[in-house]
């Protein structure tokens, strides 16, 4: 799993940034449910918000392995920031992959610097695991589309200024659009109150006769979902990477706690079952990391195996992140259950990783298809 010099340097940079800048504000951001916007702007200056923007539009166009490493290290800082970044990058990927020259020119150079912030609106109250069941419609009227419907659980819902939207242009036809947030008729619902990931804003978006010019259509009519699925394969690797970074931060917290905490006349790190727990946490974190790196490598030269590799990484890394954060909390004892230590937040944050960008059950469906039905 050798990294190039450039990848190793980027990893060092983002790790240090996570440790020095993100971790110190993570707890307060969680408590106040405020996204740390100063961190976002600093990430923009480091070129970390243009990772999926081509160089000709001012982006950095990272390879999938670098992208994975950055996601891992940002989540080592805090998952809420990493998730906001990866959703912004999903939005820029869609515009870069499917947008017309005009749309790319319009959005990408500025988004590469971090603002406008992007959102990715696929899910609806009635369409989560099966987005094909969505009810939002985009009806063609001359040289415009008129959009009606509601999207649910949209990350960056409040703080975004541009939305990549999926809507039906026919009964079975899902199409992708790009919509400026200030378009009349588009409104942001109240933010969700969540178990974890509390510094990330998750809101509904409502579309009430929202009119946009046909130029804002990203994909040909009916090709929006297939396009989304290919982008979401990359998104799954990003969430897998974030799960690894989150697990690593829980493991590191546990490592230092068990060396300090004394019971029965010595540090609890001397007790064999505690040592075994640490060993298990390490093994699970490392397993997630290896699968994730492998998936990122296959995405560099995509093949029929890439979706299976991405789902396998996402499934294992996120389930392991839940186990590792759970163990980290347990090893902290009563202290772990209080907000005095970070592990309770890591535990709450980990819970989302097996749900968004495809639940663990959906990942297993994809993996089974790869194992049983193909090849």
């Amino acid at each position, binding site marked *: 799993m050798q990294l190039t*010099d*450039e990848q*190793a*340097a*980027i990893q*060092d*940079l983002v790790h*240090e*940034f996570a440790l020095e800048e993100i971790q110190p504000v993570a707890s307060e951001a969680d408590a106040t449910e405020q996204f740390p916007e100063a961190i976002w702007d*600093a990430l923009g*200056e*480091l*070129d*970390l918000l243009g*990772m999926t923007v081509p160089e000709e539009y001012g982006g*950095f166009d*990272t390879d999938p392995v670098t992208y994975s490493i950055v996601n891992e290290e940002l989540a080592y800082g805090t998952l809420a920031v990493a998730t906001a970044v990866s959703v912004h990058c999903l939005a820029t990927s869609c515009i870069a992959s499917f947008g017309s020259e005009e749309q790319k020119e319009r959005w990408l150079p500025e988004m590469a610097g971090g603002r406008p912030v992007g959102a990715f609106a696929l899910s609806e109250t009635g369409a989560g695991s099966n987005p094909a069941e969505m009810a939002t419609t985009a009806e063609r009227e001359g040289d415009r589309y008129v959009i009606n419907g509601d999207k649910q659980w949209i990350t960056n819902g409040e703080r975004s200024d541009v939305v990549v939207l999926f809507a039906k242009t026919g009964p079975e036809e899902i199409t992708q659009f790009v919509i400026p947030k200030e378009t009349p008729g588009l409104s942001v619902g109240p933010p969700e109150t969540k178990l974890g990931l509390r510094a990330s804003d998750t809101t509904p978006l409502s579309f009430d006769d929202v009119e946009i010019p046909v130029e804002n259509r990203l994909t040909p009519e009916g090709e929006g979902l297939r396009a989304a699925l290919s982008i979401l394969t990359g998104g799954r690797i990003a969430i897998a990477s974030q799960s690894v970074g989150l697990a690593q931060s829980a493991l590191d917290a546990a490592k230092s706690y068990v060396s300090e905490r004394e019971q029965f006349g010595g540090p609890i790190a001397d007790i064999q079952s505690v040592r075994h727990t640490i060993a298990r946490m390490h093994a699970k974190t490392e397993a997630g990391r290896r699968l994730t790196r492998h998936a990122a490598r296959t995405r560099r030269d995509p093949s029929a195996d890439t979706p299976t590799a991405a789902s396998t990484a996402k499934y294992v890394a996120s389930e392991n992140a839940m186990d590792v954060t759970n163990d980290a909390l347990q090893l902290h004892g009563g202290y772990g259950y209080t907000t005095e230590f970070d592990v309770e937040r890591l535990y709450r944050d980990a819970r989302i990783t097996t749900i968004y960008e495809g639940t663990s059950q959906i990942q297993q469906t994809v993996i089974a298809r790869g194992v049983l039905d193909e090849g």
Partner: protein
Amino acid sequence: MKILVTVKEVAEAEDDFDIDGLDIDERYLEFDLNEWDEYAIEEAVQIKEDGDDVEVVSVTIGPERAEETIRMGLAKGVDRAIRVWDDAFADVGMLDPKTKADVLSAVVEDEQPDLVLTGVQAGDDSFGATGVTLAETIDFEWGAVVNALDLDAGAGVASVHRELEGGIEELTDIELPAVLTIQTGINEPRYASLRGIRQAQSKPLDLHELDDLGLEESDLESPLSRTAMYEPESEGDATVFEGSAEETATELASLLRDVGVVEG
């Protein structure tokens, strides 16, 4: 204008470590750029950004391992880097400030910088003397422990604040060419950007061996050698009182009474 920044990769030990011979076992060491040098690099890069036609060159005496750290400097805006190394350095072990200054002066001879920035000291052996010794060796003006710098490149004058003992600040104008040893806190060192890191991969990082600098092995004979390395016994524990002055004063008084420092 050319600025030469001397930089060093230093080792930091973990809290718990073992000693292996004359050094801390490498397994417990983490290598990074000397903290003071971060500020020296930032100062040089800021001068470059504010001026026209300023070149920033970094120089280190260090093994190949140091290249990763040096590249980070290139990623933050240093234009090119020089690494001085030769098997002979590995053999001599510890270099004293004078020997280092002799080696660096050969680089100054080649490069002819207008300004040399060094860190006040290195976090590992904390001599705090290399910069000033270098200035003496190359016969440059110098200013030590600089915590503010205003450069008038046209007039060839650096106006500096120097931090002296007891919280006193000295304001001095120093004529170029000069060596300034940079104190932490003079600026806020930046993070490298991804673009900077990518560009750094193709910036020059040249190796100079003793021959290239017109030096010989005998020039490295250092009057200092390390004879032992050990961890001092800790001689008692610190007691920390927390609370207001009134509360802690009472606690302190009873402690002093208990240990027999005061009677009554």
